[in-house]
């Protein structure tokens, strides 16, 4: 079973797009639930994304990729 890493759908109101600015864990690396593993930026806001579960990270959106609200930027298996 995999768990999605999602950009929260209610984080901002408008139609702005965000950009993935950094991954703090490696693709294929082990992550711990609750630890910050990525950051996105939207409207000059750096938003830290914590791992939703323990497991192995599979990155779906790379640094500088544009993402929307509700986007899945990776999974944990």
């Amino acid at each position, binding site marked *: 079973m995999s768990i999605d890493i999602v950009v929260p759908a*209610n*984080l*901002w*109101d*408008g139609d702005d797009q965000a950009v993935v*600015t*950094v991954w703090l864990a490696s693709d294929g690396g082990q992550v711990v639930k*609750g630890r*910050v593993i990525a950051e996105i*930026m*939207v*409207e*000059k*806001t*750096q*938003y*830290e994304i*914590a791992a939703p579960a323990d497991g192995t990270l599979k990155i779906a959106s790379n640094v500088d990729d544009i993402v929307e609200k509700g986007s899945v930027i990776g999974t944990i298996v």
Partner: protein
Amino acid sequence: MRAADPSRAKIVGMSAHQSTVLKKYRPLDALEREALMLERVASGTSIHECEVWATTQCLVASQRMARLAGFHDHATTSAASGWPVHVRGTGGSLVPQGSGIINVSLAFASTLAAAPTIEDAYAALCQPIVDVLNGFGCPALIGPVAGSFCDGGYNIIVGNRKVAGTAQRWRPLYNEPAHHAVFAHALILVDADLLSAAHAINALNEVCGVASRVKASAHANLQEHLSSKLGHSARDDLAYRLQMRFDEMLAAMHRA
């Protein structure tokens, strides 16, 4: 003879303690204090904090910009020309700092407000500043200003020019990851050297390959608009009013 201005009278009558509300830190100390504010709220050590401060002349870049190739070499060159470069935690692009700039650092737990969005947090940061400026009879708006440094949708504007810029960082609360510690920062131009700042930003942007350029004329210093309403120490007067207004807002947020 001009009519007495009640808001001005209040400021003139402030105590010595109140007049020292504008803290002055070295840039790295200021940035560390901001990081600690966010960390205290994220860890639950505090639920909200606000500080009004100033620092010495420098440029402050986002972490994203600091990852550009050659950034640190170019930063050394900028420092040699009087504009050392530091890196902050909030988003956006290059901003100036200096003695003519007042900063408001605000941190609060999102549990204090009903599911705040990024826009809600900008409102919490911008509205008290707008209120203070309006209290001086200085009409202020919120919006973008083309050609301004670190432009975005939540600048504070007076007379079609940017007088303050804003940015944020959000971190999950350690004990309630569905909620967040919100850190919001405003940089307010009081009597900054706008020409020098624009030149320093453009120079660093150019060598780093960042396409955007800023125009000094897109900005204004509040002293241009408030010189007759602020006391001899304009920065201290304004800092005091800002701190009081933000303290009121946080207290109301806490009660709600």
